[in-house]
């Protein structure tokens, strides 16, 4: 590779402009499928690209626009992820993808722009017959355990369509120091699609909820990474009160289409505002528990924060870790993309979204002087409870130079995003530090 091109000074843009296929081949040894112009023909170039992306997330930006940015690094088969253009690949087994902030600009997140977080191996979508998929409602505190087909769920219960934001509890983890273990998300493990399904509470009430019910949990059809069929990759849930909210859904559609395979086809839970891991994908069983659910990734340190604040790097015993509930207030600048040059003397229209777990956002501020002064942006009401809220603001820069636009949301209880990192914790959850973009005014 170096021998072929190393002696010439070639810009990567020029290289791609001249011949994208050749550029792919030169840079990555990559050959796309000649028919679809996608994927990696016989896996060619895949390891090189994965290595570059994995070694350093910045390299993800070098991926050309039309490329399907991920694959299973060690399968001999060509592999592509349909409809995930522009997402950054964090880890490919299990598959995890996040979305750069500027690609989250849509008011309703399209499937192609929604982050993917998997704990196990998704079921084979081609082998799923939605007409034969069943949902069992069971558990110690379910009075009348029973099983529904998807058609029965649709016909017996009122359909509901809501815009609901889901966010990985580890979104922002990459900023913590000392580094914490897990997918090194930056800001993109969040999205707000429109979900259609039935209310979890309607189904649970139909089956009867015993007085001693405490928790509602899911079991799903994804498989453990080790291949051990006796192990579940993840089985989490929420307290009964959260499950009974009008916005907690058993969803079978996203943005008017059946759920995409990576997002839980044919059935998932959506309990917005909590760590997205409670919104189980490929759900086939819902348990009404008489105790706090003890499934995979409920115990130990998973999706838990220190019950009391700790110093960076502290060791925290399992019994001193508490389950995460509502996610904290957070916002993104989705336009413009960080790094632009903006003409002096002209206002810059900045916009984005803000959300606040179970709460709503009441104010959104921006600063162009590193937090010294803040200006209030126009903030819309949510489309419905637990949808993210859109904000925008025309910013005038006093003189040419380097600026950072910082966005800081304040929730309905007056709680704001911090400007530096919030409290360190062993697994690197809940980093809601304000989002920053860089703008050169010239």
């Amino acid at each position, binding site marked *: 590779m170096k021998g072929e091109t190393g002696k010439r000074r070639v810009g990567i843009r020029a290289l791609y402009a001249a011949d994208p296929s050749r550029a792919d081949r030169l840079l990555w040894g990559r050959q796309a499928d000649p028919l679809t112009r996608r994927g990696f023909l016989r896996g060619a170039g895949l*390891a*090189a690209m994965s*290595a570059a992306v994995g*070694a350093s997330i910045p390299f993800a930006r070098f991926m050309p626009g039309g490329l399907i940015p991920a694959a299973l*690094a060690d399968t001999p088969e060509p592999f592509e992820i349909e409809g995930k253009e522009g997402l950054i690949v964090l*880890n*490919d087994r299990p598959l995890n993808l996040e979305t750069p902030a500027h690609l989250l600009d849509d008011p309703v997140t399209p499937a192609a722009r929604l982050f993917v977080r998997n704990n196990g191996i998704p079921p084979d979508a081609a082998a799923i017959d939605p007409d034969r998929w069943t949902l069992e409602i069971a558990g110690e505190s379910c009075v009348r355990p029973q099983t529904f087909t998807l058609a029965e769920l649709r016909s017996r219960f009122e359909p509901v369509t809501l815009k609901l934001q889901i966010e990985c509890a580890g979104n922002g983890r990459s900023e913590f*120091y000392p580094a914490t273990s897990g997918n090194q998300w930056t800001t993109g493990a969040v999205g707000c699609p429109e979900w259609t399904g039935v209310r979890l509470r309607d189904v649970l009430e139909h089956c009867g909820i015993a007085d001693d019910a405490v928790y509602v949990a899911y079991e799903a059809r994804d498989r453990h990474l080790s291949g051990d069929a006796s192990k579940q990759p993840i089985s989490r849930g929420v307290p009964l009160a959260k499950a009974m909210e009008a916005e907690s859904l058993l969803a079978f559609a996203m943005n008017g289409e059946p759920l995409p395979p990576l997002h839980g086809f044919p059935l998932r839970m959506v309990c917005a505002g909590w760590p997205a891991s409670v919104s189980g994908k490929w759900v086939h069983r819902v348990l009404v528990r008489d105790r706090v659910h003890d499934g995979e990734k409920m115990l130990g340190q998973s999706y838990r924060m220190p019950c009391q604040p700790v110093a960076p790097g502290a060791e925290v015993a399992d019994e001193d870790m508490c389950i995460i509930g509502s996610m904290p207030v957070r916002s993104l600048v989705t336009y413009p993309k960080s790094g632009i040059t903006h003409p002096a003397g002209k206002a810059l229209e900045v916009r984005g979204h803000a959300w606040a777990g179970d709460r709503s956002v009441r104010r959104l501020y921006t600063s162009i002087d590193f937090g010294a002064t803040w200006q209030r942006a126009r903030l819309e009401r949510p489309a419905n409870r637990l949808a993210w809220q859109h904000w925008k603001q025309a910013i005038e820069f006093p003189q040419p130079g380097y600026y950072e636009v910082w966005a800081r949301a304040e929730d309905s209880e007056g709680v704001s995003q911090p400007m530096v990192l919030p409290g360190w914790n062993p697994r690197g959850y809940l980093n809601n530090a304000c989002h920053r*973009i860089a703008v*050169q005014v010239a």
Partner: protein
Amino acid sequence: MFLLLSWLLAAGAATGQEIDEATGLVRAPGFEHVRAHCGGCHSFRLVTQQRADRQTWLDIIRWMQATQNLWQFEPAVEDAILDYLATNYPPRADRRRAPIPPWLMPGDPNPSP
């Protein structure tokens, strides 16, 4: 405005590290052990994206052995793996909050699409 191709090819190897093409791992002492033992269940990307000190790498291994069906290592092999990981994937420099990263800054010759 052009990013130099030669720079791109050398990047990721700012410290002169050689990257194994098949796994994405740094080629350094202990590499063979990591390649043999650490790609059975998850991809090597899970390793290469991570930064941790020796004790934290050991904690991760113990956790996988306790809960994820990872097998036990000979002590010499375990030492070699830990030395490799702690040397080649150490924690980043200390900070309360890092600056906006270079690839999101103005004047980047090759901003993301």
